[in-house]
């Protein structure tokens, strides 16, 4: 089946990219460290589980583009090409598979949204994929062996676990408040208005 993008899809991708950016502004203050702890990862998880793999991934790519062209769109007002070549670039790049996988796990084959699929998507995508890119990224940039780099990722685990829980609660709540937010495939049993 060919997936056609209508004007509304473009608008949703743009709006979700904007949400990820705005979460960087209002989110918790980034603690000093190699990689900031940021509410933007919550936005990445939500982009995937709400819009689905393709549109959610596209929203993340738009954020990358905004950062790359020199706008301060990451938490703490950072941006520019520097963040793509620094030691934390792997984590940032990891946002893309994070949103895609979160969307795939949450939606693939589902006829309606279930909380456990969303939770699984948030954990496997939002935590698993982000770390799978981020840890080798740190290792590659610094020359630190992989196991040690993996150890340093533990600093994010409590925060990211909370974000996965929050993303699940928010997505389920959004499903009740505004089912049209989700692709038609996962709300077949609902009356669409």
């Amino acid at each position: 089946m060919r997936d056609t993008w209508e004007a509304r899809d473009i608008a949703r991708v743009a709006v979700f990219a904007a949400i990820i950016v705005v979460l960087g502004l209002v989110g918790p203050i980034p603690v000093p460290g190699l990689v900031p702890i940021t509410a933007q990862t919550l936005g990445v998880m939500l982009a995937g589980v709400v819009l689905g793999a393709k549109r959610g991934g596209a929203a993340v790519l738009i954020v990358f583009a905004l950062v790359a062209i020199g706008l301060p769109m990451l938490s703490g007002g950072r941006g520019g090409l520097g963040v793509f070549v620094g030691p934390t670039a792997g984590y940032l790049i990891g946002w893309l598979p994070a949103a895609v996988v979160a969307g795939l796990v949450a939606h693939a084959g589902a006829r309606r949204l279930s909380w456990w699929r969303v939770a699984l998507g948030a954990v496997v995508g939002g935590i698993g994929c982000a770390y799978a890119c981020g840890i080798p990224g740190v290792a590659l940039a610094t020359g630190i062996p992989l196991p040690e780099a993996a150890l340093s990722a533990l600093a994010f685990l409590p925060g990211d676990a909370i974000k996965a829980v929050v993303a699940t609660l928010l997505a389920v709540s959004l499903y009740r408040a505004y089912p049209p937010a989700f692709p038609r495939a996962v709300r077949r049993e609902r009356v669409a208005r």
Partner: protein
Amino acid sequence: MIRASGVGVAIDGTRILDDVTVSVPQPRVAVIGANGSGKSTFARTLNGLIAPTEGALEVAGIDVVREPKSARGAVGFLFSNPDAQILMPTPAEDIALSLKAAGVPRALRAERAIEALRGYGLAEHAHQPAYSLSGGQKQLLALAAVLVRRPRVLVADEPTTLLDLGNARMIGDLLTGGVAEQVVLVTHDLELAARCDVCLRFDGGRLVQAGEPSEVIAAYRAEFA
């Protein structure tokens, strides 16, 4: 009773409200004026959402500058965009949220919420997603969520925007029908303004006229004749 003396608001060095001095004892107050004249800014100072950077302001006997928190408890605020003020997925939950803030025990909230919704003809929509309500129904719900806390003063910023004649009348009737000791209506709808007891006109951040609505509205219309 609103008592403002020398009230001013400056944001980042620009003065967007300037030296507002007025005493308003009337129960129904209209606020009119051009876009950007400072109406919404004035309205927001009344319940402490914006703190005046100078002057003294008293609403319902509360010093808003010193006690913004109790001002927010006594002064309800209705915004024009219902989408931004309906905070929960369904009408029943939204009203229950207000009841929670008012200290109503959990066990009573659900029932009291339905009761409140019934008063606005919304009981049958209590558990349906709020987004699917019509514009008028959303505005009613937002009003219900504010009034369920029984504020002594109600400030409404353009409450009849996008409503049809019937809905605008209904909301207008409610707002001018004694829902609180004092009601302040910020509006571009001059028919609504005419139904108040006193009218304040703002221009360029200043209060330029306060008096009989018919006169103030006539002066405002004359500006553009």
